[in-house]
Structure formats: structure tokens, C-alpha cells
């Protein structure tokens, strides 16, 4: 009697163990480029440590948490150090998670997302010996040891919109966006509109923001798909999906329609959205990873400054569409990307 019970418990444990093992394999493949672990005791001067605190979400979210973590790991490695992360489960723990790294005497703390901006500023003021990097955290006032890694989203949107203006055959393009309560989303949207009009004076731009609150606006793929469908029905043939899962829903919907193009956002979504390959001509990128790597190297050689640091924006590769895009469009786009990136062509968004 007793033995069967123990055997059953053992079996259960085994089953659970195997499941967890499988899950881990999958995730470690995703994170293959980013190795977790400090290179020694962070309190020692010669050991360089980077600690990253995510917003509520995971380091393999195929979005800003992942880009930031890859940047932290690569940046630490490049200067001979190591990086670790804490995934935030409860937003009330932002400060506590940052403190965990402060207690371990790391050299750099990277916080991901605007929501952590307050907690990062407080911790930076209290710990002048540690440099903080706030991804997407706009700094209204400068703190010497806190760099806000922010981006000209309007420029990325403008570049993508300019391409849309050149590609559209119907002279109707659309943008399906997360909430207009988040300024970067609006910058993406306005930039897209102005970019399309810059290359195509006849173009009509259908812009739709998700009407819901922050908790749903970026996680409503059904609404994204419906809105994209409406845009297609109104003869739009290039659709910009910018708003997390909501935007992803739009991309997937556009992929169903032959001949229509879609444009991704934040990072090269060709890598993250295989279902949208049929339409995904490019993505309006914020190069978070490069920005984090650069800032970490600046901290390491002592040149990092407080305040806002503008990371690079740009367009992702055309991937499979490379052969289908006319050479003259590509030439025009190269100039536009260069001049918008340098600020020579104003986006008309402030």
C-alpha cells in the first residue's frame, strides 16, 4: 500500500519534471544569444555587472523586454562582464527588484519601460555610484547617473510611411495603433501619416487608435484584425500595425489578403511574426539593443552622461520583398532614411 503511494508521487513528480524540462529547452533556444550570469563578485572593482529589471513581462517577449535584455547581455559581454535579469511579476515590486541589484553592487542597472521611470529615478538619486539606463524612460530633469534611452518614434514612423506612400497602388494607406494615451504611439502614427504624404501627395491615410485603456490597448489582436479588415475594405493596401499584440493582429489579417503590404514596429518583426511574412515589407525599428550596448560601453569607459540619449531608429530589412521593390523606390528610401535619421528632413511631429 505504502509503496504504491510513493511510486505514484514519484511518477507525478517525474511527469512535472519532464514538462518543466521541455519548457526550459524551448526558452533557452529563444535566448541563445543572451547568456545570464555575472562573471564574479560584483562588489569587486574589476568585475563588471549589469542587472536588468523588466517591466511586467518576460525577457523572451519578442519585444522591448527581449531587445533590452539582449542588449544588456551583449553589452556586458563586450566589456568582459556579465548580466542578469529580474522579471517583474507585480508592478508594486519595481523598486524592490531594482534594489536587489543595488544590494548586489552591480555597476549598471537597466530598467525596461516607461512605467519604471519613477522607480529608476529614485534609485539613481539614492545610489550615485551605480549608473542607470532607463529604456523608453524620457527624462524631464537630468540626473547625472541616469540615462534615458529614448527614440524618435516619429522618424521611424515617417520612414515607414514614406515607403508606404511609394508602394501604394490605391493611394490609401492605414495605421492600426495602440492607444493615443501613449505619446510614442502617437509619434509613430503621426510620423507615418506625414511620411506617406511626403512621398505621395495624393495619399489618404486611415489612422485608428485603440479606444480602450492601457491594459487592453496593446493586447487586443481581435480588434487589430477587425480594424485592419475595415481598412482593407476601404481599399487601403499598406497597413502599419503599431501596438503590441493589437498591431500583430492587424499584421496577421493583412497577410491574408493577396497583394497587400504590412509594416511592423519596434523591432524587425520578420523574426517574431512568421505568420505575417506574406505582407511584411519592413518594420519601423527602434534599435533598443544597439542603444543598450552602446550605453553600457559608455558606462564602462566612464563617458556615460545623464539625461536623454537618443537611440537609433530605422527600417528593418525588406527580406523576401527585396526583389519585388523597384530599384528607384529603394534609392529614394535610402536617401529618406538617411535624411530623416539625421534630422535633415523634418517629420513635422513634435
Amino acid at each position: 500500500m505504502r509503496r504504491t503511494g510513493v511510486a505514484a508521487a514519484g511518477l507525478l513528480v517525474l511527469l512535472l519534471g519532464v514538462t518543466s524540462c521541455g519548457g526550459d529547452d524551448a526558452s533557452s533556444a529563444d535566448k541563445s544569444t543572451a547568456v545570464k550570469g555575472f562573471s564574479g563578485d560584483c562588489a569587486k572593482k574589476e568585475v563588471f555587472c549589469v542587472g536588468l529589471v523588466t517591466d511586467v513581462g518576460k525577457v523572451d517577449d519578442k519585444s522591448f523586454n527581449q531587445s533590452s535584455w539582449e542588449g544588456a547581455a551583449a553589452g556586458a559581454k563586450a566589456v568582459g562582464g556579465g548580466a542578469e535579469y529580474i522579471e517583474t511579476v507585480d508592478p508594486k515590486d519595481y523598486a524592490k527588484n531594482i534594489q536587489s541589484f543595488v544590494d548586489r553592487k552591480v555597476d549598471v542597472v537597466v530598467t525596461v519601460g516607461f512605467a519604471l521611470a519613477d522607480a529608476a529615478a529614485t534609485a539613481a538619486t539614492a545610489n550615485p555610484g551605480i549608473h542607470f539606463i532607463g529604456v523608453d524612460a524620457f527624462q524631464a530633469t537630468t540626473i547625472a547617473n541616469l540615462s534615458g534611452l529614448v527614440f524618435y518614434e516619429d522618424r521611424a514612423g515617417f520612414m515607414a510611411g514614406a515607403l508606404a506612400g511609394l508602394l501604394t497602388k490605391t493611394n490609401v494607406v492605414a495605421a492600426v495603433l495602440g492607444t493615443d494615451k501613449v505619446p510614442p504611439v502617437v509619434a509613430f502614427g503621426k510620423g507615418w501619416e506625414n511620411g506617406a504624404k511626403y512621398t505621395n501627395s495624393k495619399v489618404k491615410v486611415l489612422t485608428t487608435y485603440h479606444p480602450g485603456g492601457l491594459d487592453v490597448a496593446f493586447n487586443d489582436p481581435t480588434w487589430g484584425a477587425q480594424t485592419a479588415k475595415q481598412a482593407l475594405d476601404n481599399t487601403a493596401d499598406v497597413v502599419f500595425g503599431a501596438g503590441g499584440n493589437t498591431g500583430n493582429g492587424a499584421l496577421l489579417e493583412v497577410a491574408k489578403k493577396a497583394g497587400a503590404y504590412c509594416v511592423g514596429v519596434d523591432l524587425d518583426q520578420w523574426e517574431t511574426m512568421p505568420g505575417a511574412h506574406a505582407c511584411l515589407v519592413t518594420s519601423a525599428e527602434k534599435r533598443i539593443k544597439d542603444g543598450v550596448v552602446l550605453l553600457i560601453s559608455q558606462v564602462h569607459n566612464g563617458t556615460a552622461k545623464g539625461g536623454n540619449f537618443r537611440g537609433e531608429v530605422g527600417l528593418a530589412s525588406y527580406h523576401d520583398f527585396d526583389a519585388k521593390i523597384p530599384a528607384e523606390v529603394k534609392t529614394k528610401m535610402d536617401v529618406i532614411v538617411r535624411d530623416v535619421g539625421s534630422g535633415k528632413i523634418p517629420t513635422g511631429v513634435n
Partner: protein
Amino acid sequence: MNLDRLRPAILPVAAVVVALTIGAVIVAVDGSSPLGAATAIWVAAFSGPDAIGATLEKATPLVFAGLAVIVGVKAGLFNIGAQGQLLVGAITSAYAGYRFAGLSPLVHLPLCLLIGVVFGALPAWLAGVLRAKRGVHEVIVTIMLNTIIFNLTDWLAGGPWMEPGQVISRTPPIVGSARMGRVAGLPTGFVLAMLVTVAVWFMLEHTTFGFRLATVGANRHAAHYAGISVGAVTVAAMTLSGALAGLGGAVESLGVVGRFEPGFNAGLGFDGITIALLARVSPRAVVPAALFIGALRASSSELQAGAHVAPAIVDVVLGVALLLVAAPLLLRWLLRMPPSLSTAEVQFTRGWGS
């Protein structure tokens, strides 16, 4: 002390032990040290006044939400809207906390708590009335009210009640006169939670109202024949349940968050269902159950930084513990327990038809 009084505790305690064991095995299989994980939990949740304070802070809303669910279940009602009621309590008390500045703390703090209680009770009262007068199932109504409340609070925090001069959806900070701090390291919210637990226990076990509530919960038809007004008890139980959830939200705003911000109270009301199950619908067991979950939640940061354990392990442990409590047969079979030890099984809620 006779052992019989401890019997109801055997099942949940055994479930927790088995769940922690399984958690330890998963941690080991994942390549981390179970001992390291245990150390991390100890350091983060119990090792000093700060750690204990953190655990108590995490446990506080769970106590209120757990009591809210229990009061409902005792009357045969499944208040799945504790989350929404908690949010209403959280946002209304936060509003009162920043809007009515200038009052004495002796007036301001109790006023904010009262506002949280009253407004938290409101949606639950509505569900109770619909149940009593129209026979609309409270599960449906409270789920729907949850959705309405999520969106309403989002809109308020990002619209009319939003803190000016910045872009995040959140209310301005609650002023000092309405804040619940710590006294001698002990979060005052937790002290309040203990007092309320005793009051709810006394009400359920030692008052006529508690008896009526339990009778309605056990058999509505028998209660009706015995001359108990089933409708009035239903409305009262739901209202009380919502009031408790609302108080939990108010304490969270006034004591921990310091304002209302969407997302900061996510899941607390739903955790109340977990607590109620783990406590086997006994108010006396709510505090230990909440402390257990609170300790695990308080250690999420240290588990990752100190022991390199994914925070998801906490949810796995909770899930297994709940599974074993909810399915006592499984645990009894696993541990070869004599049936007599788990006879006092709880019928969590009545069926849809009765």
C-alpha cells in the same frame, strides 16, 4: 488540546508540503538549487523586520479578498467579482485620499477607508439584489461587472482623475493624512486585516446573522421553511463580501501603492478565491493561507536574483497546492491518508440550478 480541532488543517498543510516538494524537484530539474530557493524565500520573506513587513504587506489584500470570497461561499454564493469590488475600493479611496487634502489624519484616513468599503460594496450589492429579486446568477453578474469596472477605473485613472503633467494613467499621490504607514515595522493594514478577520469569524460562528447565512448556504429551501428571508440574507452576504473586497482595495491604495494605478491591483481579488480554497472556507485559516502566499510572492525578486529561479515557480507551487486541496481524493491517495482525516470536505458552491 485535543487533536480533533487540528484535523481540518491536516489536508491543506499536507497539500502545501507536497506542493513545495514538487516545486523543489522542478527547481532542481531546472538546474538550480532547491536549498538556494528555500534560502531566498527565507531571506526575502522572514529574515528581518523589512522582509517580514514585505510579507505582511503582500498578505494583507489577500486576507481581505479571501474573507470576501468566504462570506459569499458560506451563503452559497460565488462572488467572482471580488477583483472588481477591490478595484472600486482602491480607486475611490485613492480619489478621496488626494482630493480631500487638508483634513486631520483622524478624519481623513477613516473617511477614505469608509469610502472604499461603501463603493466596493455597491457592485456586490447590485449582484445580490439581482440574485435575490430576479434569480440572475451572481457569477454571471459579477464577471460582467468586473469587465465594466476594469474599463471604468482605467478611464478614470487615465481621464478625469489622472495626475496632471505626466503621461502615465494614474491618480495623483494620496496625501500624508490618508496614508497607512507602518507602526514599529508592522504594516497597519495588516493589523486591520487581523481585526477584520476576527470580526468576520465571530460574525459567522457566533451570531444569529452568521447562522442564518450558513443555513441559507447549506440549504436555501430548508432556510426558507425555517422562516429565514433567503433574499435578504443573499443581499446582505453579497454586500458584506463586496465591502470586504473594497476595504482590501482601500488598504492597498492607502498603505502600499500610495495612489491608484491600473495594473497595480491585478489579480488580488482572484487570489481571494485561491485563499478561500486553501483555507477551506474557514475564516480562521485565512491569515495563515495569506501569509503563505504572501511570503512566496514577497520572495519573487530574491528568488530570481539570489537563487536564479524563475518566478513562475511560485504559481506552480500554488497551483499544485490548490489542486490537492480542491481534489482531496488525489492527496489522500498520494499520501495514503485514512478517509476520516479529510471527511470535512467543503462543498464550494452550489450548482447552477439550485
